[in-house]
């Protein structure tokens, strides 16, 4: 079971978009080291916005967030430090199309961590091996299938040796037959003790891997429970409605 040392600590996070939309209304969440938290909720509920505040891709106007003991503030050095500790996997993969798979993996470690290219390439090949696509290292992202691209994206995040991985609907843009291969990689990561926050609708993954499931609705956390309770005996009416819709 996860230890109790908090990796992410969010307190009363409020976010308004420039058009006045109140996206987050006082959200609290604490994620321990080694814990896998799945965030669910209908579209527009603020779940993506919420995890994007963790690595400062979204600003927030009130409340506080600290990641691995570093407080998120407007101080750019803190933001850069947090981004080095947190990897993010996007719905649309966002691989760099002008670089080969191997170059995609090596770019940030060489530029940001100032590591030697040869050494990073060795590590990158190991990671590609781990996600099962080492033979594609010399290809460009456009030559790979969606599932392969998303596995490259996961390996790219891992190459920075992050302490936390954020997943923003990692399987939503995939053809159904490719969802499984990505989820397998994520399960293996969870088994290795990686701290993960995952926005997803994959019930099977949540049931099997998550330590905790969080349901968001209209910018608030409605329910927070271990999966065996969340899926069988949800406490709130809103959760029952949501589960009825996606089951």
């Amino acid at each position: 079971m996860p230890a109790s040392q908090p990796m992410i600590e969010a307190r009363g996070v409020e976010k308004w978009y420039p058009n006045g939309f109140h996206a987050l209304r006082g959200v609290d969440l604490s994620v321990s080291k080694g814990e896998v938290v799945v965030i669910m909720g209908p579209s527009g509920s603020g779940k993506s916005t919420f995890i994007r505040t963790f690595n400062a891709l979204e600003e927030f106007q009130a409340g506080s967030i600290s990641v691995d003991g570093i407080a998120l503030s407007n101080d750019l050095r803190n933001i850069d430090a947090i981004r080095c500790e947190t990897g993010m996997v996007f719905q649309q993969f966002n691989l760099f199309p002008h670089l080969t798979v191997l170059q995609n993996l090596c770019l940030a470690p060489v530029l940001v961590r100032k590591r030697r290219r040869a050494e990073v390439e060795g590590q990158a090949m190991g990671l590609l091996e781990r996600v099962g696509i080492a033979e594609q290292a010399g290809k460009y992202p456009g030559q790979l299938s969606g599932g392969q691209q998303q596995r490259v994206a996961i390996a790219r995040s891992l190459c920075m040796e992050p302490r936390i991985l954020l997943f923003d609907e990692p399987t939503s843009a995939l053809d159904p037959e490719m969802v499984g291969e990505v989820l397998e990689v994520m399960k293996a990561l969870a088994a290795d003790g990686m701290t993960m926050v995952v926005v997803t609708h994959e019930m099977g993954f949540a049931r099997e891997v998550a330590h905790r499931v969080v349901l968001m609705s209209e910018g608030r956390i409605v329910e927070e429970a271990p999966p065996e309770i969340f899926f069988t005996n949800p406490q709130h009416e809103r959760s029952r409605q949501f589960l009825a819709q996606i089951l």
Partner: protein
Amino acid sequence: MAANSLLASLRRELFASRGDALLSAGLLALIAAAAIGLLRWAFGQAQWVVIQANTTLFAVGRYPLDQQWRLWLLVALLALATGLSWGLLRANPRGDRSGVLWPANDRIAVAVLAFLTAWAPAALRLALPLQLRWWGITALLLALRWAAGRWGRRHPPQLLRWVPLIWPLLYLLGMVLISGGLGLIRVPPSEWGGLLLTVLMASFAILASFPLGVLMALGRRSELPLLRWGSVLYIEFIRGAPLITLLFLGQNILGFLLPGGLAPDRVWRAAWVLTFFCGAYVAEAVRAGLASVPGGQQEAARSLGLSVPQSLQHVVLPQALRIALPATVGQFISLLQDTTLLSLIGLLELLGTARTVMANPDFLGKNAEVYLTLAVLFWCCCAALGLGSRALERRLDPSHSPA
């Protein structure tokens, strides 16, 4: 067999139906009539002596005779650099993936080059020593192309990464050779002319306007209001004014506007106006390129810890510039053609030289010969730019299409 299939495909393409056949026959007749007329004029009536007698004037204007060895040296160096780069490019295939040392295109290029070297100096009735010089220069280029191709194969690509550096160095050296200094006699810009001046103006403006345009495009997307509004003001002002008015304006005010020594005379003032003009259009092309890179690219780069300049340099700009390349080169091609406007402010570039030649009583009424030569010269330069751009595009294409 081959002739048969050619005939068959011709029949299929041109004479498929009665209507097609009529249209094709009519068009072919028109084309043939025009071609026969042109050829009859070119080889019968036209008096090419107006070109033959003025080759030096068309090439370099009134550049002092006793200093022209410097230009010959520069042409020889250019041939060397071209041969070297060409050979190394083929020895280290990247984007084009063919890996052949002598692809068909190159053999065609060599044939064209050899033909031009044999034909053009003779047709222009150059003195024999000058003809020999051109042959020597071509031989130099081809020899180096051959040698570099073989040498490049046997050396690691890392070593060859430094080779492109010879071009900026050569450009600086060329400026010294042309204008003097460092122990060479000064040749003031007022004595440059003809093709030399055209190429100099165009190349300077192209090289300087590209970074300017990229900076302005980034400025226009900047979050700093002063930078953004400054860029918008600059781009919209330049794009809203005809080049010819800017050229006249530049002659009058650039002397005060630019820091001392940058625009000392009319030639350099015109060069800066061309640069600023082209820069505004390049900025718009680059802005379109930047806009077409999905926001997720920047987000992914930032989420990996790259700083804003790092993500621009390594992620966003490489993609944006590749997309902006065709439009940018299109701008460069119009810029090259726009250099003819310099004749209106009294500079003796190609068109200005042509006008002085046509005003010479010895060559009255030889306008058609002169203008045709000019058109062909400009077409060659623009075609070269276009070919280069397409080759670069292919080389930068990371084979997006799924294999």
